């Protein structure tokens, strides 16, 4: 698809960059969001896999003007947007690999548990964006040798701190919640702390490394 800007209600625009998940497109989305928020200062932005929601106050900024800004941002292209994003930090997540889905996932992947743990823990992931719940970072990519299809039956309650995988990605549940990702481990680190100025441990664009305990 050709990238485009469409209205999302009267107070937001949706920038669609594509239909498929690609790491460079995710970085492009983050770049556009940062530019809108921190350089143009027009309002909050929410990047995702291949899109960005750009919010603005339609009583202060004319919609047509906001659309022009968004179209210009889009026209600057991917490389400019990505180049402008600041380098993320490295975040280490001390992890105890004892999740309830660990053995079964290893078996499906035709790996030993130790091999699966090694594959999960030895690569640095990129935090693509946050969503689903406060502090939940979608990180990837997983080693393709790990089979990471979602559970056929989502759990009614996944404990806070669960280290999980699904769809080629990994993440940590900040709070107890229902969830369909495979649980392979757990961490004591808080993913969301409202008393901190920056409440999240992992921000979009960070590099994330799981360290076996």
């Amino acid at each position, binding site marked *: 698809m050709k990238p485009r800007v469409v209205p999302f*209600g009267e107070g937001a625009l*949706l920038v*669609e960059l594509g239909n498929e998940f690609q790491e460079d497109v995710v970085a492009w989305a983050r770049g556009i969001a940062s530019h809108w928020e921190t350089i143009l200062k027009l309002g*909050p932005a*929410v990047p995702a896999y291949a899109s960005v929601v750009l919010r603005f106050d339609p009583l202060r900024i004319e919609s047509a003007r906001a659309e022009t800004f968004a179209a210009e941002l889009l026209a600057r292209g991917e490389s400019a947007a990505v180049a402008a994003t600041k380098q993320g930090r490295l975040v280490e997540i001390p992890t105890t690999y004892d999740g309830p889905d660990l053995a079964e996932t290893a078996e499906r992947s035709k790996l030993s548990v130790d091999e699966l743990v090694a594959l999960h823990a030895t690569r640095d992931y990129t935090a693509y964006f946050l969503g689903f719940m406060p*502090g939940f970072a979608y990180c990837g990519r997983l080693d393709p040798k790990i089979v990471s299809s979602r559970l056929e039956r989502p759990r009614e309650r996944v404990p806070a701190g669960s280290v999980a995988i699904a769809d080629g990605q990994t993440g940590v549940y900040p709070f107890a919640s229902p969830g369909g990702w495979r649980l392979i481990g757990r961490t004591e680190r808080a993913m969301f702390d409202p008393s901190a100025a920056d409440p999240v441990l992992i921000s979009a664009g960070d590099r994330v490394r799981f360290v076996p305990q």
Partner: protein
Amino acid sequence: MIRIIEAGLRSTIQDRGRLGHLRSGLPPAGAADPFALAAANALVGNAEEAAGIEIIGTVFKFICDDSRVVAVAGRDVSVGTRSRLPGWSSVFVRAGQTVTVYSGERTRFAYLAVSGGIATDPVLGSRSSYLPAGLGTALRAGDALPLGDPNAGAEDAGRRIEPTVYDERVRAMTGPHDDRFEKDVSARFFGEAFAVQPASDRQGVRLGGVPIAPRAGELLSCGVVAGAVQVPRGGAPIVLLADHGTTGGYPVIATVITADIGKVAQRMPGESLHFYRVDRDKALDALRAERLALSIR
């Protein structure tokens, strides 16, 4: 201080919401019926960013340590001091006088504003409660909350703002994912009535009725806004409200205009809801009309 004597079923402090941390996955929260809170604030002379109390379930009863102007707004609400007065009007209350916020049979959310505003410490730029992440708490009998300095006094009693007409007509703009629905399905969405399901809450209002199934194919999760009408594969739409997740994985067939989000929030389970298509200019006109209605001084 405002001292709570009875706290209803669930009452929380809310303001316009917390838009500064959407990128952290933190839902905006804020009043589910934003115009009702804005009206209550305007009636007691508060700034638009002031915090009030969102009340679910009756009865909510309180006293203030000093004299204040109070106002209650929402669907089917009234306020009791010595006598019972209609909502959407300002009432002067003396120190220690018991005030009761009454919800009616058709109230989902009632809003209480007190002159000066609820002055708890903001967290991450807002006083809005978001209980799933431990922001704020459900208020309880015996709680005492600080109030800011009032901008209104006895002479400001008796002001009125025209209440929202909480009918079934809800205006929405198409999209952004309207191209993921067949034309006749989109037409049905704007033609049929939907019934509000009991599982509705501050996250969203779930609708039943004729299925509005999107075309086959996955949608990558993308950011969403309050008012977005998400349609999961089964075809039962969900209208997102204040506590919506910051991203969603379902196509959004239409987006309820900001001015009508409160009407959606206040629909009772079993009541019907009917979407009408409007363009952006109409949505902006409605927003300006709201703003005008709030400028009562």
